[in-house]
């Protein structure tokens, strides 16, 4: 398990975290390549099923990165996303996958450092938690 490199999916809001990632790049800040970014128009666009599917397909961790409180371009998408993340955390605890694999993070477009730091922290946290227990499990045939 020492060589375990987690795969982390980050759903990043176009108006903050995605731009912050760009900022991190412009500032030549290093962050772990484990984080795979998916750009979304608002963190409120991220539904429970997106987080579940990412984990089901083998992601070791998932985080949703939205705007700072009160700064959502669509008024309350970040607050809605935080509630969904809390709901999924509970569900993951119930099925033994562990709610700690999922987080909600807030940042602004100018926080390149915070983006890089979050990516590093999340990678470290998931590395400690170990691989997603379903990652290498045989998958059921797709029902048609």
């Amino acid at each position: 398990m020492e060589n375990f490199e987690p795969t982390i999916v980050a759903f990043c809001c176009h108006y903050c975290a995605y731009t912050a990632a760009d900022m991190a790049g412009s500032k030549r800040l290093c962050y772990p390549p484990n984080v795979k970014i998916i750009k979304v128009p608002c963190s409120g666009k991220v539904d429970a099923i997106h987080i579940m599917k990412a984990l089901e397909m083998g992601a070791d961790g998932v985080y949703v990165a939205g705007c700072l409180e009160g700064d959502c371009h669509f008024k309350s998408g970040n607050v809605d996303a935080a509630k969904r993340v809390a709901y999924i955390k509970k569900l993951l605890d119930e099925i033994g996958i562990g709610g700690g694999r999922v987080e909600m993070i807030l940042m602004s477009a100018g926080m390149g450092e915070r983006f890089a730091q979050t990516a590093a922290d999340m990678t470290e946290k998931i590395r400690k938690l170990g691989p997603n227990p379903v990652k290498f499990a045989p998958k059921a045939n797709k029902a048609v």
Partner: protein
Amino acid sequence: MITAERKPMEELIECLRPYHRILLVGCNECVTVCSAGGRKEVGILSSALQMAFMKEGKTLEVKEMTLERQCDPEYVEELVTHIDQAEAVMSMACGCGVQEIARRFKTKPVFPAVNTTFMGASERQGVWAERCQGCGECVLGLTGGVCPIARCSKRLLNGPCGGSTNGKCEVDPDIDCVWQLIWDRLKALGIEDRYEDNIAAKDWRTGRGGGPRKIIREDLVK
């Protein structure tokens, strides 16, 4: 609408343990509106069940379907082409939907994924409250449109009782005393004198007291 809540995952996983292929069926009506068993919840539960099984080194093949109305035989019939491939069915509809599937497919085990709770209305996004107990003899016309059967902890027809304090019920301070609500409403309508009228004892046979009920509309029966 009929409201419901998903059962604990442990209970759901336990009843599906003997199976490898299931049909997970949602309903597009009440349980969709109360976010308990619509298409979205079917997807999330399917994913959660599959992960729970994979974690134990097993697989569970889940066919997801969401019917227009699970309490109508016409829509349940849509399962015919899929039912043979499934060893069991898990229904996310209210108890009516679960029973309709069990009635139609007599040799197929059917499990409820939700606990059906009450007939209610949504107070605001994400909050539902009990409003009707289907007593079979509506008294809302006498009580200003506020139901003492569903909303009074004691179902008092002539309240309030001594447990009403500052408009709240003694059972739980979060419960409004419905007789306070009825009084406020009668006052707003300018018909406070109606409060003095005694409501006659109710014939509970129109409710569950008379056993399971049935409605037969001769003009519609075929």
